[in-house]
């Protein structure tokens, strides 16, 4: 599908900080279409946050340009269409109530009167914040506060949402709940989402596409499946036996990757080389009555990234 205007368009972005050897972001170009959900990945110091800051106008590029919905990044028109969430920097006032903070956020983006009140109510309901509205921000848990931060960023109905590690520090329950809420809301409002996170489960839950950068340069741009490359066919079978002296199964295209202990063996194989049914049949034949448990898992995104970073 072709869109006349990209949601985000970065063209040969360069950011060079003084007294540093090379540029933090080096000739970075990419385009994100409206409604896309994109993960922006890279190791520490790769230039993710710097790029995000250039997109929202916090930093100016040394050279190159960035546009948000056709407007120069950092301009009033671009900022008005942009929502920002920083996991490590609160935009709320700790000593004020959630309601006051949301009220202010809405006003900053020009929402007033009934429109503002309705929007706050609508988002508070969607993100289950109604009971928090009269509470002071400092009395909220981190998970509750992050929900408020996201609502605050979405109040003005931004067409593009930039989220820098929104789930940092959250426990697994809060993370899942937040992801679910963001996902539903993104589908509902068709907001373009660009996300940076070191938690790859965020990426898998929320994003269809990912851009991988390292040393300020783009290393990969494509779908998650494409990023996994041949590793997408890799499966791990974890076998638990009842016998401690059980022999290891030796087969071509089938290798032992880990012997966790005397009773647990982990095998790896590629399903395009060895069909799953055949692999499982060989294992059950080999272990026979001693086979107690068996679990199959795919390669994790962390491992994919690790492989790509080391490459």
């Amino acid at each position, binding site marked *: 599908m072709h869109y006349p205007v990209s949601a985000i368009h970065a063209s040969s972005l360069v950011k060079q900080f003084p007294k540093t050897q090379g540029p*933090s972001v080096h000739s970075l170009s990419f385009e994100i279409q409206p409604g896309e959900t994109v993960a922006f990945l890279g190791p520490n110091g790769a230039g993710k946050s*710097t790029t995000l800051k250039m997109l929202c106008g916090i930093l100016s590029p040394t050279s190159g340009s960035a546009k948000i919905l056709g407007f120069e990044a950092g301009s009033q028109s671009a900022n008005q269409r942009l929502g920002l969430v920083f996991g490590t920097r609160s*935009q709320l006032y700790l*000593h*004020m109530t959630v309601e006051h903070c949301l009220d202010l956020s809405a006003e900053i983006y020009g929402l007033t009167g009934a429109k503002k009140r309705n929007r706050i109510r609508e988002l508070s309901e969607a993100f289950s914040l109604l009971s928090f509205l009269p509470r*002071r921000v400092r009395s909220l848990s981190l998970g509750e506060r992050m929900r408020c931060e996201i609502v605050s960023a979405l109040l003005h109905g931004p067409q593009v949402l930039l989220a820098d590690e929104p789930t940092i520090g959250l426990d697994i329950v809060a993370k899942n709940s937040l992801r679910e809420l963001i996902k539903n809301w993104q589908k509902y409002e068709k907001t373009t989402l660009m996300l940076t996170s070191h938690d790859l489960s965020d990426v898998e839950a929320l994003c269809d596409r990912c851009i991988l950068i390292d040393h300020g340069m783009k290393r990969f741009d494509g779908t998650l499946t494409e990023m996994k490359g041949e590793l997408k066919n890799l499966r791990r079978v974890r076998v638990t036996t009842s016998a401690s002296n059980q022999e290891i199964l030796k087969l071509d295209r089938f290798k032992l990757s880990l012997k966790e202990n005397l009773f647990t063996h982990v095998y790896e194989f590629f399903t395009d080389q060895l069909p799953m049914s055949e692999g499982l049949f060989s294992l059950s034949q080999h272990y026979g009555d001693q086979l107690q448990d068996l679990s199959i898992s795919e390669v994790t995104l962390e491992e994919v990234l690790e492989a790509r970073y080391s490459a």
Partner: protein
Amino acid sequence: MLPVRLIAHIPSWLPFYIRYAGFQLKGRFTDWASSLAYLLLYPFFIWLLTHLWWRFNADQGHYTGQEICIYLAITELLFMTFLRSSFMERSNADFSIALARPRSWLGLTFAGQFGTTLGGRMIYLIAALILLPFLGAPWRMVLTSCLRFILLLPALGILEALMASVLASAQLLWHETRYLVLPITKIFLALGGVFGPLADYGEPGRSIFLRLPASDLFFQVGHFCVKGEFYQTTALNWVIRISIWITLFGTWNLWFFQLAKKRHQSFGG
């Protein structure tokens, strides 16, 4: 029809900054315990300083006991709402995010400080109106002084908001300047006649202190509220001096803000 026409000419951004000023004022008094503590300390300071002045200057100074009580109420009020470092720290923290929002950081800092100062002063002024008659000042004199004070409030609020934004910008450029806020407030306290009117100081201190901006912001204001005239200067002179300070601080604000924005590009935001 004139009010309707005037409303039509109000710039669209103005109502937002007014509401933002109100938000910051609400924020200033949201902590009930500390607000109450300040409101209780306020009459205590007036009482204490009035008695100290009376002990040292009885029948010797330019003011009667009732006048000094009102004078100290005004200068204490000005001092208690003068430059707050917590507000400046929050302004600093918001600097980078403000660049990504459709509102000016300078505008937000100015409006926030102006709202907090002006609103805070109005609250203390109401407290003064209630308390001063109990401390021995005649009600009519208190009311007149308070009305005179309200006349000067906007100009003082603008100047102090500009001072606060300059200091906030300076902190972005040189972080160590945050340590300057406390000395500056203490210098203004000592030289501005907050403890006692400069008119009662001995020479040559009095002549020197009268030339300093601290005297324009504290002593002259207190003196005007009590006496209805400025001390050894005309109203026009005072207005000119304040206007010069406003122009200077306004210029420094723009300059420091541009420098801060430039420097901000060097350390990653």
